[in-house]
Protein backbone atom coordinates (compact mmCIF):
# COMPACT_ATOMS: atom_id res chain seq x y z
CA UNK A 1 0.00 0.00 0.00
CA UNK A 2 1.24 3.42 -0.86
CA UNK A 3 1.01 5.59 2.20
CA UNK A 4 1.10 9.34 1.97
CA UNK A 5 3.82 10.26 4.35
CA UNK A 6 3.23 13.39 6.33
CA UNK A 7 6.22 15.32 7.51
CA UNK A 8 6.42 17.44 10.57
CA UNK A 9 7.41 21.03 10.19
CA UNK A 10 7.22 23.74 12.82
CA UNK A 11 7.47 27.36 13.86
CA UNK A 12 9.98 28.44 16.43
CA UNK A 13 8.49 31.19 18.54
CA UNK A 14 11.34 33.73 18.73
CA UNK A 15 9.08 36.34 20.30
CA UNK A 16 5.69 35.34 21.64
CA UNK A 17 3.93 38.72 21.51
CA UNK A 18 1.52 40.14 24.07
CA UNK A 19 -1.28 37.61 24.17
CA UNK A 20 -0.86 34.94 21.53
CA UNK A 21 -3.19 31.93 21.71
CA UNK A 22 -4.79 29.26 19.55
CA UNK A 23 -8.48 29.89 18.99
CA UNK A 24 -11.40 28.44 17.09
CA UNK A 25 -15.14 28.87 17.62
CA UNK A 26 -14.94 27.87 21.28
CA UNK A 27 -16.49 25.09 23.36
CA UNK A 28 -20.23 24.74 23.80
CA UNK A 29 -22.66 23.23 26.28
CA UNK A 30 -20.33 23.39 29.29
CA UNK A 31 -21.40 26.66 30.92
CA UNK A 32 -23.48 24.73 33.46
CA UNK A 33 -20.30 23.31 35.00
CA UNK A 34 -18.46 26.61 34.88
CA UNK A 35 -16.46 26.21 31.67
CA UNK A 36 -16.45 29.39 29.55
CA UNK A 37 -17.06 29.34 25.80
CA UNK A 38 -13.84 31.18 24.75
CA UNK A 39 -13.14 31.23 21.00
CA UNK A 40 -11.97 33.96 18.64
CA UNK A 41 -12.68 37.59 19.47
CA UNK A 42 -13.14 38.81 15.86
CA UNK A 43 -15.16 36.13 14.09
CA UNK A 44 -15.08 37.55 10.56
CA UNK A 45 -11.32 37.91 10.47
CA UNK A 46 -11.02 34.36 11.82
CA UNK A 47 -13.29 33.00 9.09
CA UNK A 48 -11.44 34.94 6.37
CA UNK A 49 -8.05 33.61 7.56
CA UNK A 50 -9.22 30.04 6.97
CA UNK A 51 -11.22 30.84 3.83
CA UNK A 52 -8.18 32.40 2.13
CA UNK A 53 -6.29 29.13 2.60
CA UNK A 54 -9.32 27.06 1.49
CA UNK A 55 -9.43 25.40 4.89
CA UNK A 56 -12.34 24.15 6.95
CA UNK A 57 -13.83 27.34 8.41
CA UNK A 58 -13.72 25.78 11.89
CA UNK A 59 -9.93 25.21 11.84
CA UNK A 60 -7.86 26.64 14.69
CA UNK A 61 -5.80 29.77 14.05
CA UNK A 62 -3.28 31.79 16.04
CA UNK A 63 -4.82 34.92 17.55
CA UNK A 64 -2.62 37.76 18.77
CA UNK A 65 -3.24 41.12 20.40
CA UNK A 66 -1.39 44.43 19.83
CA UNK A 67 2.07 42.98 19.17
CA UNK A 68 2.09 39.62 17.44
CA UNK A 69 4.69 36.86 17.47
CA UNK A 70 7.97 36.56 15.58
CA UNK A 71 7.93 33.08 14.08
CA UNK A 72 10.77 31.24 12.38
CA UNK A 73 9.65 28.50 10.04
CA UNK A 74 11.35 25.12 9.70
CA UNK A 75 10.21 22.67 7.07
CA UNK A 76 8.98 22.28 3.51
CA UNK A 77 7.19 25.21 1.93
CA UNK A 78 3.84 26.25 3.28
CA UNK A 79 1.30 29.02 2.71
CA UNK A 80 0.28 31.53 5.34
CA UNK A 81 -2.15 34.41 5.59
CA UNK A 82 -2.74 37.16 8.14
CA UNK A 83 -6.05 38.89 8.75
CA UNK A 84 -7.02 41.97 10.70
CA UNK A 85 -5.49 45.42 10.45
CA UNK A 86 -1.97 44.11 10.89
CA UNK A 87 1.52 45.43 10.21
CA UNK A 88 4.00 42.64 9.54
CA UNK A 89 7.00 41.67 7.44
CA UNK A 90 8.43 38.49 6.09
CA UNK A 91 12.18 38.09 6.44
CA UNK A 92 13.52 35.60 3.92
CA UNK A 93 16.41 33.27 4.60
CA UNK A 94 18.70 35.61 2.56
CA UNK A 95 17.63 38.48 4.85
CA UNK A 96 15.47 40.06 2.17
CA UNK A 97 12.51 41.78 3.79
CA UNK A 98 9.01 41.84 2.32
CA UNK A 99 6.40 44.20 3.70
CA UNK A 100 3.37 42.06 4.45
CA UNK A 101 -0.22 42.83 3.53
CA UNK A 102 -3.14 41.26 5.35
CA UNK A 103 -5.55 39.13 3.26
CA UNK A 104 -2.67 38.20 0.88
CA UNK A 105 -1.41 34.62 0.81
CA UNK A 106 2.37 34.16 1.13
CA UNK A 107 4.59 31.19 0.44
CA UNK A 108 6.95 30.56 3.34
CA UNK A 109 10.09 28.44 3.06
CA UNK A 110 12.59 26.90 5.42
CA UNK A 111 14.22 29.51 7.71
CA UNK A 112 11.86 32.35 6.67
CA UNK A 113 10.60 34.51 9.50
CA UNK A 114 7.22 36.12 9.99
CA UNK A 115 7.55 39.21 12.13
CA UNK A 116 4.14 40.48 13.24
CA UNK A 117 4.95 43.96 14.48
CA UNK A 118 1.60 45.39 15.53
CA UNK A 119 -2.10 45.75 14.98
CA UNK A 120 -2.93 49.22 13.62
CA UNK A 121 -5.39 51.08 15.85
CA UNK A 122 -7.04 47.74 16.57
CA UNK A 123 -6.49 44.92 19.02
CA UNK A 124 -6.68 41.45 17.44
CA UNK A 125 -5.15 39.83 14.40
CA UNK A 126 -4.97 36.26 13.07
CA UNK A 127 -2.54 33.99 11.30
CA UNK A 128 -3.56 30.78 9.59
CA UNK A 129 -1.38 28.24 7.78
CA UNK A 130 -2.30 26.01 4.84
CA UNK A 131 -1.41 22.83 6.79
CA UNK A 132 -2.75 21.70 10.15
CA UNK A 133 -1.38 22.65 13.55
CA UNK A 134 -0.72 19.60 15.70
CA UNK A 135 -2.95 20.31 18.69
CA UNK A 136 -5.25 18.43 21.04
CA UNK A 137 -8.86 19.42 21.52
CA UNK A 138 -10.12 20.07 25.01
CA UNK A 139 -13.87 19.46 25.31
CA UNK A 140 -14.33 19.78 21.59
CA UNK A 141 -12.31 22.94 21.00
CA UNK A 142 -8.76 24.14 20.32
CA UNK A 143 -9.36 27.47 22.07
CA UNK A 144 -7.01 28.48 24.86
CA UNK A 145 -8.47 30.18 27.93
CA UNK A 146 -5.47 31.49 29.86
CA UNK A 147 -7.53 32.57 32.90
CA UNK A 148 -8.93 29.08 33.48
CA UNK A 149 -5.91 27.28 31.94
CA UNK A 150 -8.09 25.35 29.54
CA UNK A 151 -7.13 24.21 26.05
CA UNK A 152 -3.95 23.20 24.20
CA UNK A 153 -0.49 24.45 25.25
CA UNK A 154 -1.58 23.65 28.87
CA UNK A 155 -4.12 26.43 28.60
CA UNK A 156 -1.37 29.03 28.48
CA UNK A 157 -0.51 31.71 25.95
CA UNK A 158 2.43 31.02 23.66
CA UNK A 159 5.84 31.74 25.14
CA UNK A 160 9.28 32.55 23.76
CA UNK A 161 11.33 29.67 22.34
CA UNK A 162 8.51 27.16 22.18
CA UNK A 163 7.63 25.21 19.04
CA UNK A 164 4.38 25.14 17.11
CA UNK A 165 4.19 21.79 15.36
CA UNK A 166 2.58 21.43 11.98
CA UNK A 167 1.38 18.27 10.26
CA UNK A 168 2.75 18.79 6.76
CA UNK A 169 0.72 16.90 4.16
CA UNK A 170 1.59 19.24 1.27
CA UNK A 171 -1.78 20.44 0.19
CA UNK A 172 -2.15 22.04 -3.21
CA UNK A 173 -3.33 25.59 -3.17
CA UNK A 174 -4.27 28.05 -5.87
CA UNK A 175 -3.55 31.45 -4.43
CA UNK A 176 -6.31 34.01 -4.27
CA UNK A 177 -6.09 37.22 -2.32
CA UNK A 178 -8.74 39.54 -1.02
CA UNK A 179 -9.14 43.28 -0.88
CA UNK A 180 -10.72 44.02 2.43
CA UNK A 181 -10.54 46.98 4.76
CA UNK A 182 -11.82 46.65 8.31
CA UNK A 183 -14.35 49.43 8.68
CA UNK A 184 -14.85 51.46 11.82
CA UNK A 185 -18.20 51.91 13.45
CA UNK A 186 -19.89 55.03 14.76
CA UNK A 187 -22.08 53.33 17.33
CA UNK A 188 -22.16 50.06 19.18
CA UNK A 189 -25.72 48.87 18.91
CA UNK A 190 -27.39 47.30 21.93
CA UNK A 191 -30.62 45.81 23.20
CA UNK A 192 -31.92 46.89 26.59
CA UNK A 193 -31.64 44.13 29.22
CA UNK A 194 -33.86 43.08 32.12
CA UNK A 195 -32.19 45.35 34.67
CA UNK A 196 -32.31 48.52 32.56
CA UNK A 197 -34.91 50.03 34.87
CA UNK A 198 -32.65 49.56 37.90
CA UNK A 199 -30.93 52.75 36.75
CA UNK A 200 -32.00 56.33 37.34
CA UNK A 201 -33.65 58.28 34.49
CA UNK A 202 -30.56 60.47 34.34
CA UNK A 203 -28.29 57.42 34.04
CA UNK A 204 -30.42 55.88 31.29
CA UNK A 205 -29.99 59.12 29.36
CA UNK A 206 -26.27 59.14 29.96
CA UNK A 207 -26.03 55.55 28.73
CA UNK A 208 -27.48 56.38 25.32
CA UNK A 209 -26.18 59.91 24.88
CA UNK A 210 -22.71 60.17 26.35
CA UNK A 211 -19.42 58.61 25.36
CA UNK A 212 -17.71 55.88 27.32
CA UNK A 213 -13.98 55.31 27.11
CA UNK A 214 -12.47 51.87 26.67
CA UNK A 215 -9.98 51.42 29.53
CA UNK A 216 -6.73 49.46 29.68
CA UNK A 217 -8.45 46.95 31.97
CA UNK A 218 -9.80 45.15 28.93
CA UNK A 219 -8.90 41.68 27.77
CA UNK A 220 -10.43 38.51 26.35
CA UNK A 221 -12.68 38.21 29.41
CA UNK A 222 -14.20 41.63 29.27
CA UNK A 223 -13.97 45.27 28.36
CA UNK A 224 -14.12 47.81 31.18
CA UNK A 225 -15.49 51.22 30.30
CA UNK A 226 -15.30 54.55 32.05
CA UNK A 227 -17.61 57.48 31.66
CA UNK A 228 -20.20 59.29 33.71
CA UNK A 229 -21.15 56.99 36.57
CA UNK A 230 -24.40 55.03 36.11
CA UNK A 231 -26.50 55.24 39.23
CA UNK A 232 -28.40 52.14 40.27
CA UNK A 233 -31.52 53.16 42.22
CA UNK A 234 -32.91 49.65 42.80
CA UNK A 235 -30.29 47.07 43.68
CA UNK A 236 -26.65 46.87 42.70
CA UNK A 237 -26.29 43.23 43.76
CA UNK A 238 -28.48 40.55 42.24
CA UNK A 239 -28.37 36.82 42.94
CA UNK A 240 -25.71 35.31 40.70
CA UNK A 241 -27.06 34.20 37.33
CA UNK A 242 -25.75 33.16 33.94
CA UNK A 243 -23.87 35.44 31.57
CA UNK A 244 -23.52 35.54 27.80
CA UNK A 245 -21.13 37.31 25.44
CA UNK A 246 -22.05 40.95 24.96
CA UNK A 247 -23.81 41.45 28.31
CA UNK A 248 -23.07 44.89 29.75
CA UNK A 249 -22.93 44.57 33.55
CA UNK A 250 -22.80 47.55 35.86
CA UNK A 251 -21.24 46.89 39.29
CA UNK A 252 -21.84 49.25 42.22
CA UNK A 253 -19.09 51.66 41.12
CA UNK A 254 -21.29 52.57 38.13
CA UNK A 255 -18.78 51.73 35.40
CA UNK A 256 -19.97 49.29 32.71
CA UNK A 257 -18.16 46.03 31.90
CA UNK A 258 -18.88 44.21 28.63
CA UNK A 259 -18.54 40.40 28.73
CA UNK A 260 -16.32 38.98 25.97
CA UNK A 261 -15.22 35.51 24.79
CA UNK A 262 -13.50 34.26 28.00
CA UNK A 263 -16.11 35.67 30.41
CA UNK A 264 -17.00 33.66 33.51
CA UNK A 265 -20.19 31.64 33.38
CA UNK A 266 -22.10 33.38 36.17
CA UNK A 267 -22.09 36.84 37.70
CA UNK A 268 -24.00 38.94 40.19
CA UNK A 269 -24.11 42.44 38.72
CA UNK A 270 -27.16 43.98 37.04
CA UNK A 271 -27.31 43.80 33.27
CA UNK A 272 -28.17 47.14 31.70
CA UNK A 273 -27.94 46.14 28.02
CA UNK A 274 -26.45 43.69 25.52
CA UNK A 275 -24.29 44.37 22.50
CA UNK A 276 -25.89 42.90 19.37
CA UNK A 277 -24.13 39.93 17.72
CA UNK A 278 -23.53 41.88 14.48
CA UNK A 279 -21.31 44.39 16.34
CA UNK A 280 -19.07 42.02 18.35
CA UNK A 281 -16.21 42.07 15.82
CA UNK A 282 -16.07 45.85 15.73
CA UNK A 283 -16.41 46.17 19.51
CA UNK A 284 -13.50 43.88 20.36
CA UNK A 285 -11.18 45.77 18.02
CA UNK A 286 -11.60 49.07 19.93
CA UNK A 287 -8.33 50.00 21.62
CA UNK A 288 -8.04 51.53 25.12
CA UNK A 289 -8.81 55.22 24.92
CA UNK A 290 -11.40 54.87 22.14
CA UNK A 291 -14.82 56.38 22.70
CA UNK A 292 -17.91 54.17 22.55
CA UNK A 293 -21.43 55.46 22.00
CA UNK A 294 -24.33 53.09 22.47
CA UNK A 295 -27.40 53.08 20.27
CA UNK A 296 -30.55 51.19 21.07
CA UNK A 297 -32.12 48.84 18.51
CA UNK A 298 -35.01 46.38 18.67
CA UNK A 299 -34.64 42.60 18.67
CA UNK A 300 -36.03 42.44 15.11
CA UNK A 301 -33.46 44.99 13.93
CA UNK A 302 -30.68 43.11 15.72
CA UNK A 303 -31.68 39.88 13.97
CA UNK A 304 -31.78 41.64 10.60
CA UNK A 305 -28.40 43.25 11.20
CA UNK A 306 -26.96 39.84 12.01
CA UNK A 307 -28.31 38.42 8.73
CA UNK A 308 -26.73 41.34 6.93
CA UNK A 309 -23.43 40.76 8.76
CA UNK A 310 -23.50 37.11 7.65
CA UNK A 311 -24.29 38.10 4.07
CA UNK A 312 -21.31 40.45 4.01
CA UNK A 313 -19.05 37.68 5.30
CA UNK A 314 -20.42 35.23 2.72
CA UNK A 315 -19.83 37.76 -0.06
CA UNK A 316 -16.21 38.11 1.01
CA UNK A 317 -15.75 34.34 1.08
CA UNK A 318 -17.24 34.11 -2.42
CA UNK A 319 -14.66 36.59 -3.72
CA UNK A 320 -11.88 34.25 -2.65
Amino acid at each position, binding site marked *: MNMIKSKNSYFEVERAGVNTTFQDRGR*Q*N*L*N*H*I*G*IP*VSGVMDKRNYILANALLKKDLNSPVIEFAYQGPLLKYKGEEIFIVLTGDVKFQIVRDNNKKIIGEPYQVYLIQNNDKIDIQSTNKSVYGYISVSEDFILDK*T*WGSYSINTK*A*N*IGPNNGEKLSNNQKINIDHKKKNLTITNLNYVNSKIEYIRV*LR*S*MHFDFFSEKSKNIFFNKEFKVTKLSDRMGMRLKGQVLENVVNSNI*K*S*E*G*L*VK*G*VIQVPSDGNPIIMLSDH*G*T*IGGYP*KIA*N*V*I*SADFDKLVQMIPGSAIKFKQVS*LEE*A*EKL*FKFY*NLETDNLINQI
Partner: protein
Amino acid sequence: MIKNILNLGDASVYCDFGKDVNKEINTNVINYFNNLKDKKIEGITNITPSYNKLIISFDLDITNFLKIKKIIENLEVKKKNENKKKFIEIPICNEKKFTLDHSRLENLLKIKYDKILEIFFSKEYFCYMTGFIAGMPFLGDISEKLRAKRLETPRVKVPKGSIGLTEQFCNIYTYESPGGWNIIGNTPLEIFNKDNQKNPALINPGDTVKFKQISEDEYDKIKK
Protein backbone atom coordinates in the same frame (compact mmCIF):
# COMPACT_ATOMS: atom_id res chain seq x y z
CA MET B 1 -42.82 27.72 37.29
CA ILE B 2 -41.31 30.23 34.90
CA LYS B 3 -42.62 33.70 35.70
CA ASN B 4 -41.24 35.45 32.67
CA ILE B 5 -39.36 34.63 29.46
CA LEU B 6 -37.25 37.46 28.07
CA ASN B 7 -34.54 37.91 25.49
CA LEU B 8 -31.02 38.52 26.77
CA GLY B 9 -29.38 40.19 23.83
CA ASP B 10 -30.25 38.71 20.42
CA ALA B 11 -28.85 35.22 20.98
CA SER B 12 -30.13 34.03 24.33
CA VAL B 13 -33.31 33.46 26.32
CA TYR B 14 -33.65 34.47 29.98
CA CYS B 15 -36.12 32.40 31.99
CA ASP B 16 -37.03 34.04 35.28
CA PHE B 17 -38.30 31.74 38.03
CA GLY B 18 -38.74 34.58 40.55
CA LYS B 19 -36.66 36.34 43.15
CA ASP B 20 -36.47 33.79 45.94
CA VAL B 21 -33.56 31.46 46.46
CA ASN B 22 -34.73 28.12 47.77
CA LYS B 23 -34.44 24.46 46.96
CA GLU B 24 -37.93 24.21 45.49
CA ILE B 25 -37.44 26.95 42.91
CA ASN B 26 -33.93 25.73 42.11
CA THR B 27 -35.17 22.15 41.65
CA ASN B 28 -37.62 23.53 39.12
CA VAL B 29 -34.82 25.37 37.28
CA ILE B 30 -32.75 22.17 37.21
CA ASN B 31 -35.73 20.14 35.93
CA TYR B 32 -36.09 22.55 33.02
CA PHE B 33 -32.33 22.39 32.46
CA ASN B 34 -32.28 18.56 32.37
CA ASN B 35 -35.34 18.28 30.14
CA LEU B 36 -34.05 20.85 27.66
CA LYS B 37 -30.63 19.24 27.64
CA ASP B 38 -32.08 15.81 26.90
CA LYS B 39 -34.10 17.17 23.98
CA LYS B 40 -30.85 18.21 22.22
CA ILE B 41 -32.53 21.08 20.41
CA GLU B 42 -30.73 22.20 17.28
CA GLY B 43 -29.00 25.54 17.65
CA ILE B 44 -28.83 25.64 21.45
CA THR B 45 -25.21 26.25 22.45
CA ASN B 46 -25.45 26.53 26.24
CA ILE B 47 -27.99 26.13 29.03
CA THR B 48 -26.95 27.80 32.26
CA PRO B 49 -28.97 27.20 35.41
CA SER B 50 -28.51 29.38 38.49
CA TYR B 51 -30.46 29.80 41.75
CA ASN B 52 -33.66 31.06 40.14
CA LYS B 53 -32.84 31.76 36.48
CA LEU B 54 -32.13 29.66 33.40
CA ILE B 55 -30.28 31.20 30.49
CA ILE B 56 -30.33 29.45 27.12
CA SER B 57 -27.88 30.65 24.47
CA PHE B 58 -28.32 29.74 20.86
CA ASP B 59 -26.65 30.07 17.50
CA LEU B 60 -28.38 32.92 15.68
CA ASP B 61 -27.39 31.30 12.37
CA ILE B 62 -29.69 28.38 13.16
CA THR B 63 -32.55 29.61 15.31
CA ASN B 64 -33.89 32.72 17.07
CA PHE B 65 -35.51 34.02 20.26
CA LEU B 66 -39.14 33.43 19.29
CA LYS B 67 -38.50 29.84 18.19
CA ILE B 68 -36.66 28.93 21.41
CA LYS B 69 -39.23 30.76 23.53
CA LYS B 70 -41.97 28.68 21.96
CA ILE B 71 -40.07 25.46 22.64
CA ILE B 72 -39.71 26.41 26.30
CA GLU B 73 -43.36 27.39 26.64
CA ASN B 74 -44.45 24.05 25.20
CA LEU B 75 -41.86 21.99 27.01
CA GLU B 76 -43.27 19.09 28.95
CA VAL B 77 -41.14 19.12 32.06
CA LYS B 78 -40.93 15.62 33.38
CA LYS B 79 -39.48 15.15 36.81
CA LYS B 80 -36.16 13.45 36.45
CA ASN B 81 -35.95 10.05 38.02
CA GLU B 82 -34.26 10.41 41.35
CA ASN B 83 -31.51 7.90 40.61
CA LYS B 84 -30.01 10.26 38.04
CA LYS B 85 -29.13 12.62 40.87
CA LYS B 86 -25.99 11.63 42.64
CA PHE B 87 -25.24 11.46 46.33
CA ILE B 88 -21.61 12.36 46.91
CA GLU B 89 -19.51 12.11 50.05
CA ILE B 90 -16.72 14.68 50.29
CA PRO B 91 -13.95 14.18 52.88
CA ILE B 92 -12.68 17.35 54.56
CA CYS B 93 -9.74 17.90 56.84
CA ASN B 94 -10.16 20.67 59.40
CA GLU B 95 -6.61 20.84 60.74
CA LYS B 96 -5.53 24.39 61.58
CA LYS B 97 -3.46 24.85 58.41
CA PHE B 98 -6.56 24.30 56.27
CA THR B 99 -9.05 26.39 58.28
CA LEU B 100 -7.94 29.84 57.24
CA ASP B 101 -10.89 31.58 58.92
CA HIS B 102 -10.92 29.62 62.18
CA SER B 103 -10.87 32.63 64.53
CA ARG B 104 -12.83 34.92 62.21
CA LEU B 105 -15.74 32.46 62.18
CA GLU B 106 -15.58 31.97 65.97
CA ASN B 107 -15.74 35.73 66.44
CA LEU B 108 -18.44 36.38 63.84
CA LEU B 109 -20.72 33.51 64.83
CA LYS B 110 -19.89 33.53 68.54
CA ILE B 111 -19.65 29.73 68.50
CA LYS B 112 -16.62 27.58 69.40
CA TYR B 113 -14.95 26.00 66.38
CA ASP B 114 -15.73 22.41 67.42
CA LYS B 115 -19.39 23.30 67.62
CA ILE B 116 -19.23 25.08 64.23
CA LEU B 117 -17.90 21.88 62.70
CA GLU B 118 -20.49 19.74 64.46
CA ILE B 119 -23.30 21.87 63.01
CA PHE B 120 -21.65 21.95 59.58
CA PHE B 121 -21.16 18.17 59.31
CA SER B 122 -24.68 17.34 60.56
CA LYS B 123 -26.39 18.42 57.32
CA GLU B 124 -26.65 17.30 53.72
CA TYR B 125 -26.28 19.97 51.07
CA PHE B 126 -27.97 20.47 47.74
CA CYS B 127 -26.04 21.66 44.68
CA TYR B 128 -27.84 24.76 43.38
CA MET B 129 -25.43 25.49 40.57
CA THR B 130 -21.86 25.07 39.35
CA GLY B 131 -19.70 27.86 38.05
CA PHE B 132 -17.75 31.02 38.70
CA ILE B 133 -14.66 28.88 38.23
CA ALA B 134 -14.82 25.53 36.44
CA GLY B 135 -16.64 22.92 38.51
CA MET B 136 -17.16 25.07 41.63
CA PRO B 137 -20.37 23.85 43.32
CA PHE B 138 -22.67 26.24 45.19
CA LEU B 139 -24.18 24.12 47.98
CA GLY B 140 -26.93 24.95 50.43
CA ASP B 141 -28.53 25.61 52.71
CA ILE B 142 -26.20 25.84 55.65
CA SER B 143 -27.58 26.17 59.17
CA GLU B 144 -28.84 29.65 60.14
CA LYS B 145 -26.28 29.54 62.96
CA LEU B 146 -23.34 29.45 60.50
CA ARG B 147 -24.25 32.34 58.23
CA ALA B 148 -21.29 34.69 57.91
CA LYS B 149 -20.55 37.62 55.61
CA ARG B 150 -17.92 37.50 52.91
CA LEU B 151 -14.43 38.70 53.80
CA GLU B 152 -14.18 42.50 53.60
CA THR B 153 -11.08 42.13 51.46
CA PRO B 154 -11.16 38.97 49.36
CA ARG B 155 -8.07 36.77 49.35
CA VAL B 156 -5.93 37.00 46.24
CA LYS B 157 -5.33 33.26 46.44
CA VAL B 158 -7.62 30.72 48.06
CA PRO B 159 -5.91 27.29 48.03
CA LYS B 160 -7.34 24.58 45.79
CA GLY B 161 -9.73 22.26 47.65
CA SER B 162 -10.78 24.90 50.20
CA ILE B 163 -14.33 24.72 51.54
CA GLY B 164 -15.85 28.19 51.94
CA LEU B 165 -18.95 29.49 53.68
CA THR B 166 -20.96 32.61 53.06
CA GLU B 167 -24.57 33.46 53.86
CA GLN B 168 -26.72 30.39 53.11
CA PHE B 169 -24.15 28.59 50.95
CA CYS B 170 -20.90 26.71 51.01
CA ASN B 171 -18.63 26.06 48.04
CA ILE B 172 -15.49 24.21 47.07
CA TYR B 173 -12.59 25.95 45.32
CA THR B 174 -11.78 23.61 42.46
CA TYR B 175 -8.67 25.63 41.57
CA GLU B 176 -6.49 28.10 43.43
CA SER B 177 -8.40 31.29 42.82
CA PRO B 178 -9.19 34.70 44.29
CA GLY B 179 -12.16 34.57 46.64
CA GLY B 180 -13.89 36.06 49.66
CA TRP B 181 -15.63 33.12 51.33
CA ASN B 182 -14.84 31.99 54.91
CA ILE B 183 -12.59 28.95 54.68
CA ILE B 184 -13.31 26.12 57.14
CA GLY B 185 -11.39 23.19 55.70
CA ASN B 186 -9.91 21.48 52.68
CA THR B 187 -10.73 18.40 50.65
CA PRO B 188 -8.06 16.16 49.08
CA LEU B 189 -10.58 15.04 46.41
CA GLU B 190 -10.29 16.23 42.84
CA ILE B 191 -13.64 18.02 42.47
CA PHE B 192 -12.92 19.06 38.90
CA ASN B 193 -10.80 16.83 36.69
CA LYS B 194 -9.62 18.51 33.52
CA ASP B 195 -8.44 15.23 32.05
CA ASN B 196 -11.89 13.73 32.21
CA GLN B 197 -13.29 14.80 28.86
CA LYS B 198 -16.72 13.33 29.54
CA ASN B 199 -17.60 14.24 33.11
CA PRO B 200 -15.02 16.70 34.44
CA ALA B 201 -17.22 17.96 37.28
CA LEU B 202 -17.73 15.60 40.23
CA ILE B 203 -20.72 17.58 41.52
CA ASN B 204 -23.50 18.75 39.19
CA PRO B 205 -26.56 20.94 39.77
CA GLY B 206 -29.21 18.86 41.58
CA ASP B 207 -26.74 16.50 43.31
CA THR B 208 -26.62 16.06 47.09
CA VAL B 209 -23.38 16.38 49.05
CA LYS B 210 -22.51 15.12 52.49
CA PHE B 211 -19.23 16.17 54.06
CA LYS B 212 -17.16 13.79 56.18
CA GLN B 213 -14.45 14.88 58.58
CA ILE B 214 -11.07 13.18 58.12
CA SER B 215 -7.66 13.33 59.83
CA GLU B 216 -4.55 14.77 58.29
CA ASP B 217 -3.18 11.23 57.77
CA GLU B 218 -6.28 10.23 55.84
CA TYR B 219 -6.05 13.50 53.90
CA ASP B 220 -2.48 12.74 52.84
CA LYS B 221 -3.39 9.18 51.89
CA ILE B 222 -6.18 10.30 49.54
CA LYS B 223 -4.04 13.11 48.13
CA LYS B 224 -0.93 10.92 47.65
